[in-house]
Structures are given as C-alpha cells and as structure tokens.
C-alpha cells in the first residue's frame, strides 16, 4: 500500500492488524516514509492541539442581541402554550454558558416535552395539512386542462347503433336503433373502453349484416340481432335498455330512453376541460348529424396519459468516468401514437483519475533555511502539477520519485426538458418508440434523442429498454469536488425504465 495512505489511516486509527505490521516494517525500512510520518504526526498534533479559541465578545453580543430581538415566526398560540419551564431559561443562560444551567434546568426541558405533547403536535399537523393542500393543488393543476379526459365525465352513457347492417330487418321493424346501452357515472377511461368495444361489435355486426342481406331469412335475423345486443352488453358490462324481443329499441327517442334530455343534461354536473367545454351538446349534435354507427355520450377523444421513469448509464462519454441519469416524466397523448410531455431528471458525473506525478525531493541545500517566495513557488509548482515538464535528468540538484495520486469525483446536475414521443412500430405487446427532448439544466441547454423498445408487461405497464444520445454540457474535470471546466459534447447511454399508460 502507498505509504501516505497508511500514514493517513494511522492518524485516523483505522489501520488493520496486517496494515499495522506493514506500516511498522515500512517505517523501519524506508527513511523517506519515516520522514513523511514524522511530518504528518507533527501537523496532526499541531492541528489537534489548537490554542484555546474564544468567540470575541463583541461578536457574541451582537449575535445574542439580534436573536433577542428577532421576530418569532411560530404562531401566537404556540407561544402561549410554551411551558413556563422554558421562560426562565434565558435569564439563566445569561449567567454564562450551558455549564451555568443546573441539572434541574436541563431536566425541565424533558418535563416540558412530556407536558407539551399537544402543543408540539400542532406544527406537525400544520405541515401535514400544507403537504396535502399542495398535493391537492397539484392535482387540480393537472386536472383542469384535461379534467374530463380522465376524471368523471357525467352520469350517463348511451350507445346506439344504427340500422345500416341489415336493410331488410330495419325495413321490416321500422326501427333504426338496434342497441342502446346506459350506464351510471363513468370515468372517461371506462367510456373509451366501452366505445372501443362498441366499435368492435358494430364492425362484426356490419359484416354479419352483409351476410344477412344475401343469405339469411328474416327469421334468422330475429335470432341473430339480439345476440349482438347481448354480446355488446356482456362485453361492455353496462346495462341494456329498451331492447324488445327482436333486440331493437322502440320508437322512443334514444334521448328519452337513456335519460339524455335537456333537463337531465343541465342537472348533470360535469368537470369540463379547457379543450372540450360542452361534451353533451357535442354528443347530441353527433346524434342529430348521423344516425349510423354512432354512440352518444361525452365527447371524449382517445387521449392517454403516459408516466415514465428511466435510468441510463453512459456507454461513451467525452470524460473519463461514468455519466448516469435518472429521470421521470409524464405526457399526454395528442394522437394514438404520439405523446408530448415533460421530463425531469438528474445527471451524475463520476470519475476516477490516477495521476502519476514526479515529485522532487527537497534539495539538500534548503535544509534549515526558510526558502524565498520564488523558491517556494517553484518547488510547489513542481511538486503539485499533475505532470512535471522537467525531467530528472535535467536537474543536477534534486532527486525525484514517482508518486501515484488517485482522485475521485462525483458531481450531479438537475435538468428538465419537454419531449415528444412517437410510436414508430407496433407489433403485439412490443412497440418501438422514438423520443426527442430539449430542455435546460444547471449547466445550460441540452437536447436528446432516444429509441426504446416498449414491452407491455401487464395492463398499461411496460418495460422499456433502449439507447439515448444526449448533447449537453458536461464537466470535463473536477478537482476537489469543484467543477473546473464545462463544455458541450455527446453522451451515448444505454437505458431502461418503466412506462405506464393511463
């Protein structure tokens, strides 16, 4: 082990038994190590045995005067509930330091704690309330723009399928509506699910209708049509309304059948988003405009919300060391395959640098003489520069030795970015997404591109694996924890993460 490391461990009392043996052997054998050890111990003792320090009285007075007059931010109720055991303490403390307190004084703190449980609970409760209110405010901010896309959208849902598939059956029964379905209060996500089922059943129904027109008798029609209605009810899980023996509704208007009258609408509170202010009217217009393949209900676009987390580890980076990034983001689907959103993360730069330095031994002539400023600087520059430019052979006055110094550094930055993500390929449970982002971090602007495979695990939860290229400012050197320089460059990373579609 490097002698300096052993010396440092010795000063900390951290030498193991083996290291202690090695250390003693080294001191016995190496005069340089012995000299270094003597210096280290001398400095260590000198620093530990510091002269008695006293705070200047003028500084102390000004601090205490400031505190005595400083306003308290705690509420008046807390002040009034303060135990009397604390009130007298200030005057006690004037006697001079904590040592002036009697044991009774100090114990009174403990008694005060026990008797003032309720008083101390108050700030904690207030803090909890503040957090809850902050969370509620955040939800409200998220909910307002897209509220009825995700939250409750009203207390009705009506689906209606038109008469197109079976011309003969429509003509014979005189009914345009084959299926109507009603439900109670629903979530937009539930509505989307039902609407999708409806479309699927409608497609099958339309296909069957073509078959019916050409090949099947009206008796067969009466048997088949209800099966689709039943199928729809079964697959959506919603209540079926007004289906007669033939599986058709009566001539009663759909609006009345499902309670979608003007009165019902006005009585139905609904959280409207900024982008869809009157969904019920929209639904009505939709019904009036076309009677086939339509469904009545809130006008909910097929919008999705995306929550992502990712962790990336650099594969190549302009700096020696590793660049790791952890991030989280959320986005809204603007189309079926495209999301826009925000991502926030932190990037950590870690590096290990080993420096081999030529260190000059103190010149013989300098022993016992305080060096001049110029001589000291010259010596210092030679000793501490990472690589000396002076060859040992060029100096006839000094001896040199090679010394290894290891430097570790770890620095982090926080950044935020806006992104757009698009699914470029979809097959089964796997899809390939591309994401472009641009934002700003502590060190400056950044941009990134990402390709990731998304594999659906369960429901809307997917595992993502991919690669990322990030063009961002990075720290080229860190000395003693202080960033020495920054420049832009590209970091290519492998990443994995989770993605949830809501």
């Amino acid at each position: 082990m490097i002698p300096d490391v052993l010396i440092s461990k010795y000063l900390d009392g951290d030498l193991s038994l083996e290291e202690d043996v090695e250390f003693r052997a080294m001191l016995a054998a190496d005069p340089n190590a012995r000299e270094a050890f003597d210096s280290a111990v001398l400095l260590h003792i000198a620093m530990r045995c510091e002269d008695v320090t006293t705070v200047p009285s003028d500084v102390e007075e000004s601090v205490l005067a400031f505190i005595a007059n400083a306003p308290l931010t705690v509420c008046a109720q807390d002040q009034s509930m303060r135990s009397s055991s604390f009130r007298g303490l200030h005057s006690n403390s004037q006697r001079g330091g904590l040592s002036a307190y009697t044991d009774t004084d100090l114990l009174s703190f403990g008694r005060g704690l026990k008797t003032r449980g309720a008083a101390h609970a108050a700030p904690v409760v207030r803090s909890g309330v503040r957090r809850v209110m902050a969370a509620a405010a955040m939800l409200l901010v998220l909910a307002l723009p897209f509220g009825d896309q995700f939250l409750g959208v009203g207390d009705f849902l009506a689906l209606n399928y038109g008469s197109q598939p079976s011309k003969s059956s429509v003509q014979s029964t005189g009914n345009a509506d084959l299926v109507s379905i009603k439900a109670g209060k629903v979530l937009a996500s539930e509505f989307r699910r039902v609407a999708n089922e409806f479309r699927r059943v409608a497609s099958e129904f339309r296909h069957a209708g073509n078959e019916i027109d050409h090949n099947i008798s009206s008796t067969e029609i009466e048997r088949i049509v209800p099966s689709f209605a039943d199928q729809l009810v079964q697959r959506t899980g919603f209540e079926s309304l007004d289906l007669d023996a033939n599986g058709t509704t009566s001539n009663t208007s759909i609006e009345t059948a499902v309670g979608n009258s003007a009165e019902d609408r006005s009585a139905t509170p609904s959280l409207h988003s900024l982008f869809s202010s009157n969904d019920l009217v929209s639904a009505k217009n939709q019904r009036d405009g076309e009677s086939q393949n339509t469904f009545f209900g809130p006008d909910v676009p097929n919008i999705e919300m995306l929550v992502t987390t990712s962790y990336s580890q650099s594969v190549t980076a302009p700096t020696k060391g590793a660049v790791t990034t952890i991030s989280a983001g959320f986005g809204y689907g603007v189309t079926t395959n495209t999301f826009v959103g925000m991502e926030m993360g932190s990037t950590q730069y870690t590096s290990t640098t080993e420096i081999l330095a030529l260190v000059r031994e103190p010149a013989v002539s300098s022993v016992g003489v305080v060096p001049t400023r110029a001589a000291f600087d010259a010596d210092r520059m030679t000793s501490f520069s990472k690589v000396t430019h002076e060859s040992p052979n060029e100096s006839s006055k000094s001896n040199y030795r090679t010394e290894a110094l290891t430097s570790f550094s770890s620095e982090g930055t926080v950044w935020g970015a806006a992104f757009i993500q698009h699914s470029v390929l979809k097959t089964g449970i796997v899809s390939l997404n591309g994401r472009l982002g641009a934002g700003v971090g502590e060190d400056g602007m950044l941009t990134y591109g990402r390709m990731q495979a998304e594999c659906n695990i369960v429901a809307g939860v997917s595992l993502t694996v991919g690669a990322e290229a990030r063009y961002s400012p990075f720290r080229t050197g860190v000395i003693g924890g202080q960033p020495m320089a920054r420049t832009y460059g590209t970091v290519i990373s492998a990443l994995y993460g989770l993605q949830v579609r809501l």
Partner: protein
Amino acid sequence: MRGTTHHTAPTLNDEQLVALVIAFRDGDRGAFRALYDMFSTAVYRFCRHMIGDEAMAKDAFQETFIRMFEHRQELRGTNVRSWLFTISRRVCLNHLRSRRAAHISFDETFHAQGEHQQSDVLLKEQIERALDQLPVALREALVLREYEGHSYLEIAAIVGIDLSLAKVRVYRARLMMRKLLATVAQQIR
C-alpha cells in the same frame, strides 16, 4: 489518536437533547442560547480556519447563528452539530466567493517571516497560511476532521458527499499540507 479536546460543552442525555431541540425549533431563545453555548466556539474556530480572515470569520460566525435561528424549523432529528456545521460551511463558502471576487492579494509575508518566532507558534501560523492555500473542498474536509474532530460520516453529511469521497479529500488535504509545510516541519524537527 482522535482528540476530543475541542469539545468542551457539557453533554446532555438523549431526553434533554430532544427537549432542547424541540424547544429551539419552537423559537425558545433560552434553548437557542444553550445550543449557542454548546457550539459557538467550534463554529467560530471553523469559520476562522475556513476563511482565514478574522473580520470575515466574525461575519460568517454571526451569519451562521442568525441563519440557525431563522431556519430552526428546518432542523430534523437531534444532530444539531452536523446541521449547524452545514449552515456554517455554506456561509463560509459564500464569504469565500465574495472574497475571491474582490481579488484579495496573496500575503507577501507568508514565507519571509518566522525566523524570530518560537517554533510552535511558527508552525501554527504556517499551518493557517498553508490551509489558505488548499482548495476549498480539501480545506473544509481537513478542518472538520482535524480541528473539529468530526467523523468521516459527519463530514460526508455536512459537505454533502459520499463517505469515500470524504476520506479521499481528507487524505489529499493531509498530503498537500505536508508538502506545503515540508520545509517548516524539517526546521522544527
């Protein structure tokens, strides 16, 4: 080897300390005074070693305790010492930045004196001056370790770095100090 000579404040038992901290968080000035008495000397010494300038160290010291009182409700747990040194470190760094901006010149007398002084006084003065030559990150680690006797874990918590990095910084600081003071140490020996 770890010295505890700097920590002269009387020790409290856990219950007393918890009660003291709670009272302090509630704005009790008596509790503040008790904590002040416990830590003021160490904090002042830390400020002085970090900044190396008496007047600025006084300012930093005052600011530390004023901030301590103003931000008392941010104190979590009962480790007042680490929390207080975290505040003090930030204050000192701010002062150092402002001093750097003002371009205070190098003390020309650094290497030209000392021959007429006692060796221990010389050494301590030279240590102060060498400390001033260390990078701030190394200096704070060394001061916390050697002068204040903090554990590496405490140093890591105060500075906000990994434990291993705290050890490396102290190691590097010791190495640099030895090299900066090699001649002086030889003289004394």
